[in-house]
């Protein structure tokens, strides 16, 4: 009887230790939820990762408003092994508080710096160590109704004079110049501010202001805001007038653009998917261009503003950091797979900032989207890039840019007063060591 019991216990203990020793390490990843993309990400990323290897088991958890969710989890010393954030300015706060793990040893071990575009890698480096990797990169462009332009003999504009002349022709036809609205996302005002900073004041001046070599109150920035105010309030470029701009949401303005209510749509590259879908239901054709340069000091060629749309990091309290690093390395190691994932999301999400070449692209890719990917890579590689507020601004000045822009449009403060407040908040952020990294230009 004792012998049987011994054999049984030995079996049980062996099974227990074998399970403990050889069980896959579980890595939990909290991701920003988006109803449109979650199923694809689950299938093509999370499930695919688990199917390819059995060393690490990845569990993807999709969360609404990830920043509000992750904050209490990190502060309590728990939370997932990996997590998303909306951008680098949040990482800076987490890093200061010791809530996010340095990934420098993994970056060195796996050679992540060689895989990522230089500016994208640098956007996650704080105090010389890597803390986050962008999940997506984007820039600001404008789409236009190609058929409409051809019918009317309109050319796409290259400078301020051509923009204003084209706008007058579009308005004379009873259409709005640009379709847009902020009802669904109030911070979208910052997209417009960033566009005018980079195409009027110019990326060199923006860079100098970011690193403190120039003041935000310098004339080129104040003039850029004044020009935006004029185009928004006096000219009503966006959906006809300021009040309508405040009232339209994502579906409204995309629909307006696709149904000839407006001739153009100034938006981020996340607009590719919806534009292609909406125009697919009409007989019109569309195309896109980089934003026209509005002032000679902004350079001679159009620039592409650098932006990261969400980042991934490892929790400082994670007990499975090695497993989490393996997940990240798996994601960064296959450009073909990465392009396939983002391609199935219309290149509007999960566009990892990897060093793509022509050969990496699916031959069936829409040539307009391929043109963006290759032109952006060339421009950013050759230094012809600008800066978005949501990637390179610290929190407080970043919120000020979109919250207080409405006050300028309302006429309650002047563009100079607006920029003075901006400078004050930048000075404060600099004093508090709250700035986010800006790679050397």
């Amino acid at each position, binding site marked *: 009887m004792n012998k049987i019991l011994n054999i049984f216990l030995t079996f049980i203990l062996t099974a227990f230790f074998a399970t403990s020793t050889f069980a896959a390490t579980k890595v939990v990843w909290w991701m920003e939820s988006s109803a449109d993309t979650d199923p694809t990400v689950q299938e093509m990323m999370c499930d695919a990762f688990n199917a390819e290897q059995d060393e690490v088991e990845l569990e993807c958890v999709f969360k609404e408003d990830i920043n509000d969710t992750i904050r209490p989890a990190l502060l309590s010393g728990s939370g997932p092994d990996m997590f998303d954030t909306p951008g680098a300015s949040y990482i800076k706060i987490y890093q200061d508080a010791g*809530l996010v793990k340095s990934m420098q040893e993994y970056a060195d071990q796996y050679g992540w710096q060689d895989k990522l575009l230089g500016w994208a890698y640098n956007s996650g480096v704080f105090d010389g160590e890597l803390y986050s990797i962008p999940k997506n990169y984007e820039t600001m462009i404008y789409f236009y109704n190609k058929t409409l332009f051809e019918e009317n003999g309109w050319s796409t504009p290259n400078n301020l004079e051509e923009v204003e002349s084209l706008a007058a022709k579009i308005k004379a036809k009873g259409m709005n110049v640009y379709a847009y609205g902020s009802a669904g996302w109030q911070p979208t005002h910052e997209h417009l501010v960033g566009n005018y900073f980079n195409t009027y004041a110019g990326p060199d001046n923006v860079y100098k202001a970011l690193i403190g070599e120039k003041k935000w109150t310098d004339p080129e920035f104040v003039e850029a805001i004044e020009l935006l105010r004029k185009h928004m309030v006096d000219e009503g470029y966006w959906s006809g007038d300021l009040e309508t701009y*405040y009232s339209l949401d994502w579906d409204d303005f995309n629909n307006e653009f696709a149904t000839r209510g407006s001739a153009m749509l100034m938006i981020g590259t996340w607009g590719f998917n919806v534009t292609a879908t909406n125009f697919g239901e009409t007989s019109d054709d569309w195309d896109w261009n980089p934003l026209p340069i509005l002032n000679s000091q902004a350079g001679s060629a159009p620039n592409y503003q650098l932006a990261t749309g969400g980042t991934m990091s490892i929790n400082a309290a994670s007990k499975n950091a090695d497993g989490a690093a393996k997940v990240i390395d798996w994601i960064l190691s296959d450009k073909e797979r990465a392009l396939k994932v983002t391609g199935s999301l219309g290149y509007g999400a999960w566009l990892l900032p990897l060093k793509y070449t022509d050969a990496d692209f699916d031959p069936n890719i829409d040539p307009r989207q391929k043109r963006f990917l290759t032109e952006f890579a060339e421009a950013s590689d050759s230094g012809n890039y600008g800066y978005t507020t949501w990637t390179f601004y610290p929190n407080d000045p970043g919120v000020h840019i979109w919250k207080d822009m409405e006050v300028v449009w309302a006429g309650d403060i002047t563009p100079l007063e607006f920029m003075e407040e901006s400078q004050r908040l930048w000075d404060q952020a600099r004093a508090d060591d709250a700035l986010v990294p800006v790679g050397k230009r």
Partner: protein
Amino acid sequence: MPKFLTSINAISWYFLFPVIFIHFFVVMFPSVLSLLLCLTDWNGFGRINYVGLENFQELFRDRVFKKAVKHNIIWTVMFLTIPVIVALIIAYLLTGIKRGQLFYRLVYFFPYILASIVNCLIWRYIFHPRHGLGGWFENQGIDFLAKSPFAMKETALYAVAWVDMWHFWGFLVIIYLTGMYQVDDSLYEAADIEGATKFQKFRYITLPMIRPIFVLSLIIIIIWSVPTFDYVYILTMGGPAYSSEVVANHLYSQAFQRMNVGYASTIGVMMFFYVGIIVGFFAILRRMGWEV
């Protein structure tokens, strides 16, 4: 076991203990913490630095906070008048309806049981410049409501308050009606014999008799107006240009957008003191013999 541990009083405390325990950790502890945080520059994550009364000094320089306080006062005055007057009249009229009264009560109360997001979406759609009433009037060649009142700085606060009042006044109707049904019928019969008009009966019988409920409703309105947040947040986010910003929105923006948790706590403390003053004021009235 000592007798005092098994006394009726002690047993009452045993039953209360779970609630007190939860209340301490969920309400009391964070409240006290907030009192301490208002003296710091904490960003919600890292190091906490003591800054003395700097946040309070900043508060009095903060033009948005001043604007928000003004909007809260306007909000309170609107809620103390429009829905109260309408609810009193409707409740009084309803007391005279014998058949079908339940239907009216249901209709008036219905918006109150809807989630705020539903109420807001209904009204946002109604005032939408393209799909709402404005679009419809435009198709008829009439330039009315062409711009959403939520999008104009002159009207945004009033438009949001309108939506909240639309949702709230039915609640007042129900509590006033309940009070009116408790008034002794013999008073009205006596007034009828004296030849009193309907208005005189309302002014000299109904109103004085429902005073405790009426004053309670005013206290509720004043206190609930302080942390008002959801309707403003959903409909305008405090915009355009802070024209509908209220104190709770400003607090949220400072704590969760600008990451100034210390400063946001200062705003919270000010709200706490304000409510304390209101409650204290009514407590004094009660001590002076007022039926409140």
